């Protein structure tokens, strides 16, 4: 159901749509022309990741690295073409800044659709593993006849508890991008439109080694690491960057053929190592920036007909699963710069690895730089 949204589609939809308040309803079906199995209003929580990405690209990467997410307001407008909702546009505004516009396709709401599908499985309307499709239907405020979502209502009910919440301000190292790129080598195709990401040589090796450790088991199991690094800001361009400086093994975890389940001891160790690295300095720049893990299981089946002639084999075990997606959304909530690095193998038995970061609400493959080890600031 996903379709690329062109800039012209956004213009055709009319930016005056921002003058109205819109809601989106997600409709799930077993097949494209089947009857609706579920209708659910898209909640603020469903849109949280898109909003945080608008914050990243509209402000953090454009010379306002210190602007907190809470200071950004967004308005949503649907993108409709030939009667079909292709996605939505968020217009993000911060104090004293120009508005920026960010486009998201239907596929960015796949995690929300996955949750609805799980409920349908529980209710017996779908079976585990069944395929489903979903679409978005926009309504102007007041047009919808749906009840408010219980989950959305619960978000504001603290049950009489006294709670004070704070969000830690992002802290940055000064990292001139031109200087970093001067001696860097690249992994994958570099796209200047996406957030620059750097791995130090030693962090890259550790990320890979921890991810591939389980490949030697019989049967292979999933293993991985939590990535430690820092956010950087370029004094020349104002562009933000992420640099991975170290990797902590996901130890004491349940390692299975198709999953890696951290335990309480895993997280305790990660926090202890991080505390040691930062020396307990609350103003330091070192932080958790992502994870690496290996899809170490072998691919089923024989190499395809293209194997003898194709330069590269595109059939690999490297992909972002629903579990990987959920892990990133929850462990790194509100951190649209977080990194998802996955290793695996292709149908030729060659080792492959890809870095994924958020782009238009979806974790997409992208290139990155590998640099010499840095002296920690």
């Amino acid at each position, binding site marked *: 159901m996903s379709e690329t949204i062109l800039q012209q589609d956004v213009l055709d939809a009319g930016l005056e749509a921002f003058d109205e308040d819109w809601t989106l309803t997600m409709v799930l079906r077993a097949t494209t022309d089947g009857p609706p199995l579920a209708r659910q209003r898209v909640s603020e929580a469903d849109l949280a990741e898109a909003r945080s990405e608008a914050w990243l690209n509209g402000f953090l990467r454009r010379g306002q690295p210190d602007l907190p997410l809470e200071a950004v307001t967004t308005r949503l407008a649907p993108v409709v073409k030939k009667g079909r909702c292709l996605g939505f546009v968020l217009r993000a505004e911060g104090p004293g800044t120009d508005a920026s516009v960010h486009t998201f396709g239907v596929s960015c709401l796949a995690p929300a659709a996955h949750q609805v599908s799980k409920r349908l499985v529980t209710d017996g309307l779908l079976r585990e593993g069944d395929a489903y499709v979903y679409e978005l239907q926009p309504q102007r405020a007041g047009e919808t006849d749906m009840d408010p979502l219980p989950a959305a209502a619960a978000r504001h009910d603290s*049950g009489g508890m006294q709670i004070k919440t704070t969000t830690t301000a992002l802290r940055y190292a000064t990292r001139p991008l031109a200087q970093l790129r001067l001696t860097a080598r690249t992994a994958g195709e570099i796209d200047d439109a996406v957030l620059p990401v750097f791995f130090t040589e030693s962090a890259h090796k550790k990320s890979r080694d921890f991810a591939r450790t389980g490949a030697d088991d019989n049967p292979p199991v999933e293993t991985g690491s939590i990535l430690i690094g820092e956010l950087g800001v370029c004094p020349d361009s104002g562009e933000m960057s992420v640099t991975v400086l170290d990797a902590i093994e996901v130890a004491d975890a349940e390692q299975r053929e198709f*999953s890696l389940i951290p335990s309480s001891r895993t997280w305790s160790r990660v926090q202890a190592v991080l505390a040691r690295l930062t020396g307990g300095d609350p103003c330091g720049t070192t932080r958790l920036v992502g994870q690496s893990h290996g899809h170490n299981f072998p691919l089923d089946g024989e190499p395809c007909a293209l194997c003898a002639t194709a330069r590269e084999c595109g059939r690999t075990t490297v992909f972002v699963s629903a579990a990987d997606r959920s892990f990133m959304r929850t462990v790194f*909530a509100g951190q649209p710069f977080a990194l998802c690095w996955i290793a695996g193998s292709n149908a030729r038995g060659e080792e492959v690895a890809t870095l994924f970061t958020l782009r238009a609400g979806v974790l997409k493959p992208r290139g990155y730089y590998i640099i010499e080890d840095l002296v920690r600031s």
Partner: protein
Amino acid sequence: MITTSQDLLSRTAPGKVRLRIRDITATHEAELVIDADLRVGAVARTVAARMSLPADTTWALRSDTTAAFLDDDATIGEAVGVDGDTEVFLTATPRAHLGAG
């Protein structure tokens, strides 16, 4: 950034516990003074919501002292084993895993 202006009690009343809960990346933090007889699972859900963490996953509370997950069905008073002014440090942890399956 403080997202609510409600001040906490300067002194914890009897039957209450004082908690400081952070998420794994220490991006979000919550300070609470709550009834000791509230269930751990309910506290985890409420705190996760107030921290704007995703509501479509199960959140657990982990003791920073013992490193163990608190029992969702226990009362928070039983789980942390203290009552009164002692502040207890916990981490809100999603029941999430990595992997292709």
